[in-house]
Every structure is written in C-alpha cells, then in structure tokens.
C-alpha cells in the first residue's frame, strides 16, 4: 500500500462523522444513539461527530425496521452520502425487522434495502455496544 493511501486510511479511521436516520424505530434505539453522543460517553475521543446533513457523513446510523414510508427516504439519504460510506444497523429491528417483522407496512431489516456493514443487536442496543461496534468497524478500514 502506498504512503498516501496509508495516510488517507488513517484519517478515515480517526474521523468518522455519523448521520442518524430513524427508519421506523420505536424511539428506544434513537435514545440510545443520542445517549452515546452525550458527554458521558464522549465519542469525540474517537473523532466521532454527529452531522445533520448526509453530505458530510461517513457512517449512516439506521435504527428501526424499514417501513414503506421511509424506504424511499432511506435510499435517498444513502445515495446523497459521498463515497466511501458505511451503514450501521442499530437494534434488533434494524438488523432483521425484529418484533415488527411481518407487519403489513414493514419491508424488513435495513439490509433488504441498502448494504449494511455492521449489525448491533439488542432491544434497545446499549450505548457501549454502539461505541464498540463503531470502533470495530473502523478497525476494518485498512
């Protein structure tokens, strides 16, 4: 690997900016995501910052099962993010559809719509688990 690629990978590992998308969660997982961003867990240690616009994001954090309403919005948000981008599915619902699987308005887990790089199970996923997953995902960038 050339030196500039090494530097770029280092920078990508050190500065992941996340965009949070609620695809139809019951709000439990959303609160845990917000929790993880509070001063108590201090995600800025890893360079993680929350950004409002998908144009600035590197990691799309999706919570909840994808409903028919949010399906198109999820795809649109995903496509507006510049490459390279990663998707993290947080909570049992986002991983597989969870308790909402099979509902008349639910399309299923996030991976049925867009490619997912990391799954964090749990109902709701703990902030520690979220941080651990993001750090593990980052260590795979080589």
């Amino acid at each position, binding site marked *: 690997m050339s030196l500039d690629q090494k530097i770029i990978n280092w920078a990508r590992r*050190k*500065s992941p900016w996340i965009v949070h998308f609620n695809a139809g969660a019951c709000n439990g997982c959303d609160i845990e995501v917000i929790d993880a961003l509070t001063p108590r867990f201090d995600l800025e240690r890893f360079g993680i910052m929350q950004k*409002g*616009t998908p*144009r600035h994001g*590197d990691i799309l954090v999706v919570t909840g099962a994808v409903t028919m309403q949010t399906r198109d919005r999820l795809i649109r948000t995903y496509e507006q993010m510049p490459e390279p981008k990663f998707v993290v599915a947080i909570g049992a619902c986002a991983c597989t559809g969870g308790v909402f699987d099979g509902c008349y308005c639910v399309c299923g887990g996030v991976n049925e719509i867009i490619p997912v790089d990391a799954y964090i199970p749990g109902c709701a996923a703990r902030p520690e688990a979220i941080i651990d997953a993001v750090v593990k995902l980052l260590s795979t960038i080589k």
Partner: protein
Amino acid sequence: MSIFYLLVFPGFLFLSALGLFMEYFDRKVYARMQNRVGPPWYQPLADIIKLVSKETIIPYDTNKKMFAALPVIALAAATTAIFYIPIWSSHALFSFTGDIIVVLYLLTIPTLTFFLAGWNSNSLFAGIGAVRNLTQLFSYEVPLYMGLLAPAFLASSWSLSEISQFYTTHPLLILLNIPAFIVCIIAVQGKLERVPFDIPDAETEIVAGSFTEYSGRYFAIFRMALDTELVVAATLLAAVFIPVFVANPFISFLIYLAKVFVIIFILAIFRSVMARIRMEQMVKFCWRYLAPLALAQIIINILIKGVLPL
C-alpha cells in the same frame, strides 16, 4: 520573497498549521468544560485529510464554477489579511495608511462567500442559512468596526503598524480600550459563527446552514478558511488591544502565540458556557448594547485625546 511570505510564513502553511492547532485547542477546552476527555491533538488534521480524500458531490442545478471557487476565495481572503497585521514586531510585513479597513474588509469576504455558497446551493436549508448569514453580518459588523476604530482614533492613525507602535510607546493607554476589547471579542464570536451566535449553521434547525450541500474537498477548504479566520481575527485583536512587543523577534513571536492562545481561550470559554440565541435577540443585543458601548468608547477616546498632550 513575496511567494515565501504568501505560501510559507506567515502565509498559507503557517496559518493552516496554527489554525488546525487552534481548532484542536478550542475543541479541547470545550470538552474539558463539559468534563470530557476531548479529541486527540491530530483530530482537525484527520478531519481535513478525510474530507479531502472523500468523493465531492456538486448538486445538479448549481453554478459549478462558482461552487468550486467560493471556498478558495474565502481561504485566500482570510490568508491575505495576515500580511497587514503586526506579528513579531510592531511593523507588519506590508503597511499603508488605511490598512485596518482593508483587513476588516478582507475578514468580511469569507462571510459573503458563505452567503453566496448557501444561495448558490439551491437547497432550502442552505438558503435559510445564507439569509441568516447576512442578517448576522449586519448586526455584529458595525460594533466590530467601531470597537476596532476607537483605538485608532486615540493613536491618530489608520494603519495597524502605526497603532501598534503608538501603544508600545504609551503602554498605559491600552487600559483605556478595555470596553472596546470586550465589544470586539463578542463581535468576533459572531463573525466566526460560534455559540451563542451560531445561528447561521444551527445544526438542530437548518442542518448545516450554508454548507449543507458542500462535501469533500470544497467543504475541507471552507473549514480551513474558518480556522484561518479564527487565527487572523485573534491576531488582529492581539495586535490592536494587547500590543506587547520586545526587540528580539523570536521572543516577540512567542509572546504573539501566547496572546493568540489567551484570546482563543476566552472565545472557547464563551462558547462552552452559552447556548444559541435567536436571530432577533442577537440583532437587538448587538445594536442595543454593543454598538452604544463602542460609540461611548470612541467619544471617550476623542475627549481624552483633547485633554492629554499626545
């Protein structure tokens, strides 16, 4: 030699390095005030490298040339302003009568490019951010100009180098300008769009303001421009209000760094103890309290100039 000044010291390279470090310092102080550990020292550098290496998206119905040129103009304007400000001695690299006005205008150009960037992006959020940018400009700009011109009245000069020389020979008169210094610190906070005046890029209301559509390398240049502007504004305040220079240029340079640290520390404390205010509250505050305070400072300085044999 001019190329060296422009690109290496005290131009682009030096300002970028100091700007990135100051961004780290600012974020670290902010984190410590919230009882956090905060980012590591290389964080702003990693952010910039990552942004540069990312894909750059230009929205379909924007003017592409303007979209690409605006960040560069912002960075160039902020960098150019440093040449007229005294750094390591009371003589700036270049100086002429009236350069204080030129510096202030050069520091206004980034704000105008933010406005144009938001307006050109053709996005709703960016449009609102752009309008807020301009509204904010009208509220802090007048107090800032008056606050910076008050010391110039006392020194009877419109050149930053001569103002610095005047206060080096009359150090006690610095104390007179403390109200103007307070006005300028608050106004600079508004100019740099930091809390409590981060109304144009309030991420809880209008996602990222003017920068909503910017991504990749253009956004990286905008971030660099903001960092540079932070350093240049701190340098300007240091040169006008804390003109402490010694004969040895190296020691003088260290004193300069200390002054910039102190000013950015004050700005960071400001940022961490306050919350965002609304647009009309800001306009009211600036025109009702800051502008009269700056005006009073000018009148006091003119009166003192009549009394003291200067």
